């Protein structure tokens, strides 16, 4: 059981974020121009921090750090290969949700610290959205934990050596993926902080290093969401010919591409429709998924 | 050297801070926050007992679980009461809520 050093995880986060930025550019603009991406990143980093107009500087400038911390901790829960299992904690799948839960205070801090009305509203909208979505997220993880008889991510991957859990628990997958997308600020669930809505949302007035950290954190969150979906539902590193790490990378990239494509193709859901759906439909379905997972465990995994 | 007395002392200090909050704050929500700190101190004590005195007592872990649940339940009912009170009296300050009627 080899835990990875923190440096490896941070390097993975940075490299994965860069790769996902390229993927997003490919999907959005249908071209691959790493130089243009690097130039825009450098341009963002050179801007000065927007200090004088900020209402609560501690919260405002602390929020990107908390966001990035939560994102990297969430990414650390994903096992990539039998030899590189990330932070293989016994309750790793729940700690993934726990790390993601710190995205909510971070967005709130960003909105409240900026002090401008639309940004405060954006922060509060994200709170409302995440309160609603956290339930299906954690319940879907519980539903996956039952057949695997463990919450350790590598054990969940090992339980899928024959059949990926997406086939036996499709409902849990359908609940987990949108919830993870909502946390990772991926359209179509990114209403509280999308450009063009609410004046840009909670992150609108970030400049310079803050904006760069927020962009990096968004990519790392997407990587973590795609990686965790692969781990919990698609069988992680299991596959016939290629080495395990390559299988995980391929599956993660495919899931991330699907998530980004969904963002491009689907219209953004309105928050007054998304919230009732989350409370009245998603939570009962998540309870149903838990019952279903219990049945599947008793019938097949024993 | 960390031992049981150290953990219990930290728990006692945290409990006292929560108690200070409960006794000195005028707003109902700050009082709820003080109670949360007190419950946190109790949980810290239970975890200290599990680690340093009785390691095979899974009942201690269950106690912590129930205490966490109680934190959430108490906050829920407290907030509902604050909403209801605010609707009738337009205030959540405990100093103004000293009479049963109007």
């Amino acid at each position, binding site marked *: 059981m080899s835990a990875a050093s923190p440096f490896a995880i941070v390097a993975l986060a940075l490299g994965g974020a860069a790769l996902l930025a390229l993927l997003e550019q490919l999907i959005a603009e249908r071209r691959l121009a790493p130089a243009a991406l690097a130039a825009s990143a450098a341009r963002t980093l050179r801007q000065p921090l927007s200090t004088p107009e900020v209402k*609560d500087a501690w*919260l405002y400038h602390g929020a990107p750090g908390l966001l990035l911390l939560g994102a990297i901790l969430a990414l650390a829960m994903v096992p990539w290969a039998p030899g590189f299992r990330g932070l293989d*904690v*016994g*309750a790793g799948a*729940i*700690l993934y*949700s726990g790390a993601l839960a710190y995205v*909510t*205070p971070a967005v*709130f*801090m960003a909105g*409240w610290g900026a002090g401008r009305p639309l940004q405060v509203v954006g922060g509060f909208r994200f*709170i409302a959205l995440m*309160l609603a979505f*956290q339930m299906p997220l954690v319940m879907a993880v519980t539903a996956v934990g039952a057949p695997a008889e463990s919450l350790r991510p590598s054990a969940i991957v090992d339980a899928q050596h024959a059949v990926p859990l997406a086939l036996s628990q499709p409902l849990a997958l359908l609940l987990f993926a949108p919830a993870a997308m909502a946390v990772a600020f991926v359209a179509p669930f990114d209403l509280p902080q999308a450009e063009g809505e609410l004046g840009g949302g909670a992150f609108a007035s970030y400049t310079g290093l803050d904006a760069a950290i927020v962009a990096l954190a968004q990519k790392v969150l997407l990587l973590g969401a795609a990686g965790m979906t692969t781990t919990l539902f698609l069988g992680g590193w299991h596959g016939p010919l290629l080495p395990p790490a390559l299988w995980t990378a391929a599956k993660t990239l495919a899931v991330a591409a699907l998530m980004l494509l969904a963002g491009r193709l689907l219209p953004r859901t309105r928050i007054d429709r998304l919230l009732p759906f989350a409370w009245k439909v998603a939570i009962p379905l998540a309870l149903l998924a838990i019952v279903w997972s219990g049945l599947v465990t008793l019938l097949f995994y024993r | 050297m*960390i*031992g049981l*007395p150290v953990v*219990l*002392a*930290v*728990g006692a200090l*945290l*409990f*006292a*801070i929560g108690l*200070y909050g409960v*006794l*000195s704050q005028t*707003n109902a*929500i*700050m009082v709820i*926050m003080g109670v*949360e*700190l007190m419950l*946190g101190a109790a*949980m810290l004590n239970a*975890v*200290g007992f*599990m680690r340093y*005195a009785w390691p*095979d007592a*899974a*009942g*201690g*872990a*269950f106690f912590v*679980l129930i205490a966490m*649940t109680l*934190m959430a*339940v108490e*906050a829920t*009912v407290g*907030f*509902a009461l*604050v909403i*209801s009170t605010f609707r*009738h009296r337009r205030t*959540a300050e405990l100093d103004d809520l000293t009479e049963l009627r109007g």
Partner: protein
Amino acid sequence: MSDLGTALVFWPGAAIMLLTGVYVFRTSSMARAGLLLLAALGVEGLVFLALAAEFLGVLQLLMMSGEMVIMVFFMVMFMPDPGGLMGMDMTHDKRRSAVAAAAVAVALAAVAVATDWPAAVVTGETPDLRQIGFEVMGRSMFSFLFAAVTILFAMVGAILLAKQGGRLGLPAPGSDRPADDGDDGERPA
């Protein structure tokens, strides 16, 4: 966790918990108060992890973020000065409560230090997830059920308390039933 690792997390963690706990009640910005409480109880989760209670630490970290965010939500709704910009003093009986709190702290710490606890355990094999599961579903099943029913009652009761128009809801337009806001104190039959 090794002794050094535990000490590295516990001592700074305890200091952060106590300091942020005190500052919760001394700051005038309500958003900061809620986030400081989040810091205090979140660091408590890390302390649980250091004290070899893995599942409980993870659970504490997970739950506290959601709870404290809700608390900040409510504070901004119901407090007269959530931004803390006007410097209102929101306390009463500060000296007496400080004295009472200090007395309680001294008494509890004295009990903690003076009692003859069982000998310190070296290995510290605290219950893992499986043992907690068996405990919950076995010996403590009754308490678990009781807690579950309590949560259900709390949820239903909270929603009834917070409903607009009281228990029976707002009257339909056109009906002459007065809205049960509870102001007159009479309960409709």
